[in-house]
Each structure stands twice: as C-alpha cells, then as structure tokens.
C-alpha cells in the first residue's frame, strides 16, 4: 500500500523528490532539445554542401 502522507517531514521528503524531478526532467529536456537543434543544423549544412 502506498503511503503519500509524510507527516511533519512533508517539506523535506517532497522537497527532495521535487528537486530530483526538476533536475532530471530539465536535464532530459535540455539534452533532447540540444540533440534536435544540432541534428537540424548539421542536416541544413549537409544540404547546403551538396548544392552545386
């Protein structure tokens, strides 16, 4: 059974989980955006280089 009531430690426990979620999700989003941007930039340059 899941217990989500952290009693008097609510700030510390949820603060830890919240900080972890924010950090890991931000890192994931930033990495995915950087990857997509770089892929687009490289593709554009490759297309440009193939033009006669």
């Amino acid at each position, binding site marked *: 059974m899941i*217990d989500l009531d952290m009693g008097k*430690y609510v700030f510390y*426990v949820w603060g830890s989980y919240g900080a*972890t979620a924010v*950090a*890991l999700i931000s890192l*994931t989003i930033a990495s*995915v955006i950087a990857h997509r941007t*770089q*892929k687009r930039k490289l593709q554009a340059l490759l297309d440009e280089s193939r033009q006669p």
Partner: protein
Amino acid sequence: MISWLANPERFSRIFTPIRPYVGVAAALMFMWGLYLCFASPEDYQQGDTVRIMYMHVPAAWMAMAVYLIMGIASFFGLIWRHSLADVAAKAAAPIGAAFTALSLLTGSLWGRPMWGTWWEWDGRMTSVLVLFLFYIGYMALHAAIEDETRAAKSTAILAMIGLVNLPVIKFSVDWWNTLHQGASVVRADGPSIAPDMLWPLLVMALAFKLLFVWLWLLRIDTELMARRYRALRARLSFAEEGN
C-alpha cells in the same frame, strides 16, 4: 574492443538503435522504483525521512561513478588519443554535475530534520562539494579553450587529478569523524539495510544508471554532430576562400 568502438561512426551505428530501448527501460524502472519508495515502510528512528535515501544515495553513487567514467575516458583520450574519449568525457560532465548537485541538495534536506543542520564541513560533505567543483571546473575549462585538441588535453589532466578525490569520498566516513554512517549496502558481510528498504534503493539506483546511459549516449551523439558540423563548416569556408 575500446579502439574498435572509438570510431565515432561505428559508435553511432551501434548505439543509436539501442538508445530508445535504454530510455524506455529507464522510464519503467523509475515508475517501479517510485512505487516501491512509497510502498516501503517508514524507519523506526527516521520516520518518513528515510524515503529521501532513495533519491540521495543513487544520486551520490552516480556522482562518483560518472566522474570515474570521465576520468577513465580522459585517460584513454590523453594516452591513446582516441577521438571519442574526449567526446565521452565531455558529454558525461553535465550529467555528473547534476547528480552531484542533487546528492548535496537532498543530503541537506535529509540532514536538517535528522542532524539538525543543513550543512556541516565534515569529510564526506566537503569531499562531495570538491567533486562538484571539479565538474564545474572541467566544464568551464572545456568552454574556455577554443582549440579542441588543447581543450581535450587540459580537461583530461584536470579530470585525472580529480580522480584522487573519489577514494577520499568513499573512505571519508572511515578516516574522519563524520555525521554520515558507514557503508550499509556494499559491505564484506553483506548489506545491513532491511530488505524492505534495500529493494527500492537498488531499483532506484538502476533507474538512475539507465537514465545516465541514455542521456550520455544522447549527448555523445549531439557532440559528435557538433564536431562534424564545425569540420564541415570549416571545409566549406576554406573552399569558398579558394574560389
């Protein structure tokens, strides 16, 4: 094997198809781990604050593991000049820095209710803070040097110097008086932690590891594309100047 994989094109060809599966495995493992974190019992002494352990300990383990990977990659880059080694080390640094920052932050949030302090200059906390500064220094140095070869060499030396700090972190609880307890999972006589708490911890540790591998592969691919872009841009500029 390492030399064979050090070819950037071969590396991309092998790991790009694997990457989505690692991402899905990480997401599933996080879901299972989070369920276990809140289904596990509270500690008889620490109460619900013991649940902070399931974030804090995997983050701390990864902070050290990622730096070790960075140090090994830097060693290969410096000695054998593998082109992928610097890329691998550079791609790992921001992820390791994030894990280290998380271990410091969650440790502080755990320390306040249990020890009555947000921060103490004890061996473990200070050495982890030093680790964080090594990560920041590594990234700053890489960003500051424009020439890729020089940047790779300088940062590899810095990363290898920082390796000295890893045993200090690990054994700080044995060497000095500290608020931290001794090892309770990796011990010669087996874990001293209750199985109800060990399982969520191990599942979350695996989730953190899988997330790292996924992010690392993604960032390596990004860096390889960035280098290819710069090389191609330079070649095109050179060709235009020739005309």
